């Protein structure tokens, strides 16, 4: 395989907190233009892996190459134009308006002292519309509900216009209508703009509906990975989570869906 065509090439990655190992010699190669679902039991290192991919944490060993270049060689501002992060929750103590917070996604594209131009404002307006928060544009984020705030940071990540978007359980605070709406939107980003999404999911069925490939993590390593239809099996689910389940291909859905057994 050609190195530079791979988006991420991870070799023997290690990360530990003082009291325990989180990532233990993880090796993985991810191609661009696909929607990856990152799954696994609590505490298996999914969020830490996202942090390492964005260089929000320093690995204790191993290497990450991003677009053929050592991740360490990038400048922070370059990374901010290449990757966006939607965290699981966010909390803001200052009365910024929704529009101001979404506009912060344009900062990486603007020089330090520059004011946003008409293009930036148009982009923000369009995304406010898409994320269904145009009506909230001038409200303060401190006054929003959890689900509304979540849509604000998703919008902020979208205006960042990056090739890679990392979602850390980005839709778990949303009601099902908004969750599906935004996942459809992310799916479009992959299909039309060749963007790459790497998303941590708790909900295996949502992951199965949207992801091209699934990565199951266990004990700080990727235990199983591959195309969704190939790796989503009762055996995988039993091996990773220790649960009994059936995998079905319902006629109404174009993706496998898991039915759990008690």
């Amino acid at each position: 395989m050609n190195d530079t065509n791979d988006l991420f090439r991870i070799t023997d990655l290690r990360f530990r907190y003082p009291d325990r190992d989180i990532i233990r010699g993880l090796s993985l190669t991810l191609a661009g233009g696909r929607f990856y679902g990152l799954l696994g039991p609590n505490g298996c290192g999914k969020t830490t892996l996202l942090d390492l991919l964005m260089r929000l944490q320093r690995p204790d060993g191993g290497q990450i190459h991003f677009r053929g270049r050592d991740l360490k060689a990038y400048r922070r501002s370059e990374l901010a134009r290449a990757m966006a992060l939607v965290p699981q929750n966010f909390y803001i103590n200052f009365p910024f308006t929704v529009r101001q917070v979404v506009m912060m996604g344009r900062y990486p594209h603007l020089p330090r002292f520059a004011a946003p131009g008409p293009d930036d404002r148009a982009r923000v307006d369009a995304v406010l519309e898409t994320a269904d928060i145009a009506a909230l544009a001038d409200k303060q984020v401190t006054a929003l509900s959890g689900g509304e705030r979540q849509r604000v940071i998703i919008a902020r990540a979208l205006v960042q216009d990056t090739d890679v978007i990392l979602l850390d359980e980005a839709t778990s605070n949303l009601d099902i209508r908004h969750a599906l709406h935004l996942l459809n939107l992310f799916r479009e980003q992959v299909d039309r703009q060749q963007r790459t999404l790497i998303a941590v999911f708790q909900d295996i069925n949502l992951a199965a509906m949207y992801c091209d490939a699934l990565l199951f993590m266990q004990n700080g390593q990727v235990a199983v990975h591959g195309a969704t239809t190939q790796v989503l099996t009762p055996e995988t689910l039993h091996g990773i989570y220790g649960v009994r389940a059936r995998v079905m291909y319902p006629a109404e859905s174009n993706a496998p869906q898991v039915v759990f057994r008690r």
Partner: protein
Amino acid sequence: MERSGETRDIESQERDRPMSRATLSVPSTFGTIAGLLFLLAVAVVATAALGYIRLPFPAVLQIMASRLFDQPGWIAQIDPVWTVVVTEVRLPRILTSALVGGGLALAGVVFQGILLNPLADPYTLGVSAGAAFGASIALLLNIGLLGVYSVPLFAFVGAAGTLLLVVFLASGSGGLSSTNLVLSGIIVAAILSAGISFLKYVADEQVGVIIFWLMGSFASRTWLDVAMVGTAVFGSLAVFMVYARDLNLMALGERSAASLGVDFQRVTLVLLITASLVSAVCVAVSGIIGFVGLLVPHMMRMLAGPDNRRLLPVSMLAGAILLLGADTLTRAVLPQEIPIGVLTALVGGPFFCYVFRRRQLGKA
């Protein structure tokens, strides 16, 4: 299996929420700053006329103009005593108090931004306690090796040393988290205030001097003080404006700020050190003046919004006007001069309670 048809949407976005006042009318940045600048200029001239000798405003303006443009001829008809009163007595004090007010407000904005806490202030990290401790030592030992500047210098060293200690205590494998910073600030401040109590206890007849210094005063400030504070305040303003946008992003939390291109650790450290230095200089020159750094940013955030690129200059000007007003009140209006630190605490404290209570009720 998906079931369609009977699904009911929970229209969370249509829940009725009152529009908050801050979003209704945000005056333009330029207008606000110009207005505050004008107000400050008027305040400087007006307060220079007030005092033990009440001077006419035109004379004050003439004296200022003649000094500003180096034209001694313009004040040939004015009593030379008036000129001395304005240029050597009142103006240094007026400008020092305005600059200290601006510096404390700037530091307040930055500390609140870094510590992600709208109720933090320049003293949260123990910087003031460190300055007070340093000054108390100088006063107690009657150290005179640097003349009148021994006390400010000791205060500054105490403040800087405290900051280093607090940052050292707070830094660990997880970096500089705001919780760790606040915690170590509280611990160090508690130790230092016990130390100050001890110094007062052993001070004997010097205790009065220490207590008076700790309560803060702008009496008998000189042009050297003005130059010192001015350098610190305008220098820090420049640094803060460079990082104002990063400070906005830091309100989103460390992960989000870093993902938007902020070098979080470095920016935190630069801002922390700069804000502590400007607070240390202010404390060294004026003693302990509380609540300006806490209240001014808070009030200005309601008026000008939380964007630090606007909030910083607006808070600086408002802080300057506020402290100049407070100092004029104690210097020229009240029958007896009250220590400025006591005045700001007496007025600012209850106001802080009000703001805090509103916050508890979820209205701020």
